[in-house]
């Protein structure tokens, strides 16, 4: 306070704060952001209160009608139930397997067989992450095809007379899609966790080994707590990705058969561009957005609580 008043004595005109001069650099970014994300997002919520067939057709106000209809829409509930399956396939299983694989590669194979062996194995786990997920989906769509697909042709070669229709039966389609997604996803946690392990002080492991702690004990007592920050990042990003998943569903099953692999993003796409129920699709997209924000908020909250507890324990 006193310093600012003394400057006003020296200089009668107050100079604007230093940061104001940087505002012009923010203009293109903010304008583009409002135009491409802000305005469409608000408009989407607005559309969700209307019944609209898209294009030049008139909008008819229905208030919360679309949302009320969602409550009684079994396809809508199926799609969110399948989202839980997507979280299992894209978050829980890959994170658990990724933790073990990363620890085995880093702390066992890397030390017993050299870093090169670990690097080659890591690269082969990571390969599915590099290619466009739609391309991976097309490849798997063929492999799992009931008639000409590689898997069933191999099974027939072994004498299986009636191999299952992996993507075409209501009971098998979801597990098949989940397997493909696990295959796609696993490399990501492995790579993140392995780079996280490089951060961990090797003396911790050496000390534990001298104290006679076996591999499993070191994994539980050192590896997991030490890389907790990265685990939260992986869980957060993969959960958001699992809730948003679209391309694999589109190329593998188109949500079928009989909605058994329907997910929210594909359901809103169907309403927008296939059924011309734009207001309804907008309501689905709005609910999905809210679910993602709430779930992400919960994960971030858990993370900060875990960090706080760790600081108190120290």
């Amino acid at each position, binding site marked *: 306070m006193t310093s600012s008043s003394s400057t006003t004595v020296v200089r009668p005109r107050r100079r604007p704060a230093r940061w104001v001069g940087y505002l012009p650099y923010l203009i293109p970014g903010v304008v*583009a952001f409002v135009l491409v994300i802000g305005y469409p997002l608000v408009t989407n919520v607005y559309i969700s209160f209307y019944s609209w067939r898209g294009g030049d057709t008139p909008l008819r106000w229905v208030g919360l009608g679309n949302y009320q209809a969602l409550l009684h829409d079994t396809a809508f509930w199926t799609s969110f139930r399948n989202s839980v399956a997507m979280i299992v396939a894209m978050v829980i299983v890959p994170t658990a397997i990724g933790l073990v694989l990363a620890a*085995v590669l880093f702390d066992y194979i890397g030390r017993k067989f050299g870093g090169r062996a670990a690097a080659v194995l890591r690269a082969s786990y990571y390969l599915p992450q590099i290619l466009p997920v739609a391309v991976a989906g097309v490849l798997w769509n063929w492999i799992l095809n009931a008639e000409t697909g590689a898997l069933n042709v191999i099974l027939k070669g072994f004498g299986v007379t009636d191999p299952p229709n992996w993507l075409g039966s209501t009971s098998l389609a979801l597990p098949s899609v989940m397997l493909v997604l696990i295959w796609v996803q696993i490399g990501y946690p492995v790579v993140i966790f392995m780079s996280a392990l490089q951060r961990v002080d090797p003396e911790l492991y050496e000390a534990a080994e001298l104290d006679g702690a076996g591999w499993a004990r070191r994994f539980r007592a050192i590896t997991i707590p030490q890389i907790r920050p990265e685990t939260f990042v992986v869980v957060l990003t993969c959960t958001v990705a699992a809730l948003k998943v679209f391309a694999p569903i589109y190329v593998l099953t188109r949500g079928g058969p009989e909605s058994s692999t329907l997910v929210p993003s594909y359901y809103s796409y169907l309403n927008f561009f296939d059924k011309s129920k734009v207001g309804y699709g907008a309501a689905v997209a709005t609910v999905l957005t809210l679910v993602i924000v709430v779930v992400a908020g919960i994960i971030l909250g858990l993370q900060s609580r875990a960090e706080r507890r760790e600081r108190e324990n120290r």
Partner: protein
Amino acid sequence: MATLTAPVSAPSVQQSRPDRRHRRGAVRWVVLALAILVALAMLSPFVIMLLNAVKPPAEYSQNGPLSIPTHIYLDGLKNFWTRTDFTLKLWNSVFISGVVAVAGTGLSLLNAYAIGIGRVKGRLWIVSLFLLANMLPQEAIIYPLFDMAQKVGLSDSQWSVIIIFTVIQSAFGTYLLASVLGTFPPALLEAAALDGAGRWRILWRVVFPIVRPTLAVLMIFFFIWTWNEFFIPLVFLTSTDTQTVPIALASLQGDRLMDVPTTNAGALVSLLPALVFFLIFQRTLTRGVTAGSVK
């Protein structure tokens, strides 16, 4: 303590050592074998794709997917290439991803300059908003965007896809670059300001050369991410002249003419660019990331 326990424990260690080491020797090979088995499971779809991309259809129906082709059959590849006009699709993907990579990095740099170095008021809000935008499902903005594009005559135009992805990618780029620029050495900025350099000059003559490695990494990421995108190109690029590689491959699905070699050759040439790009820039990526973090 150490002198007391040493003689006691020494004999037991000696006793158990050879035995334990022998057991460990076997265990480590089992662990390695398991890790290799997982790797083979991960690689097997690629191997099957490679084998059947160049296998004649008759051989496939006779010997199945696991046989080694007796001769290289390229008709599947030719078939796919001409039917999709793949050269054009490659160019479309390169063009869209390239423009987005450059424009998105440029926009990120401008934003991050104001936020990280300018320390603009409310910067925490701006960064959080950008991060939130990164989590949004694209479905929540797609229809209004689709509608806007039609109104301004940009429907089925690659420019609408370029504009949208430039903004989406720069939302992440701003967050990353702003935190890098937040730690920029102030002495450098002050020295440049004393020399009479304005903000625009400082950005290009002082800040830009130093963060160039980080910018290179961002550009590579933006290129790969845009290349792999599916949903927005699927909605916006409706005619075959404008489509990108993943859309071209997916839109041929279920086509009667997509026999086994054509499907596999199509998948192969569609994933090769991403793979080649990744291999070329793998070193730049690791180098760039560390260069950015050390500063």
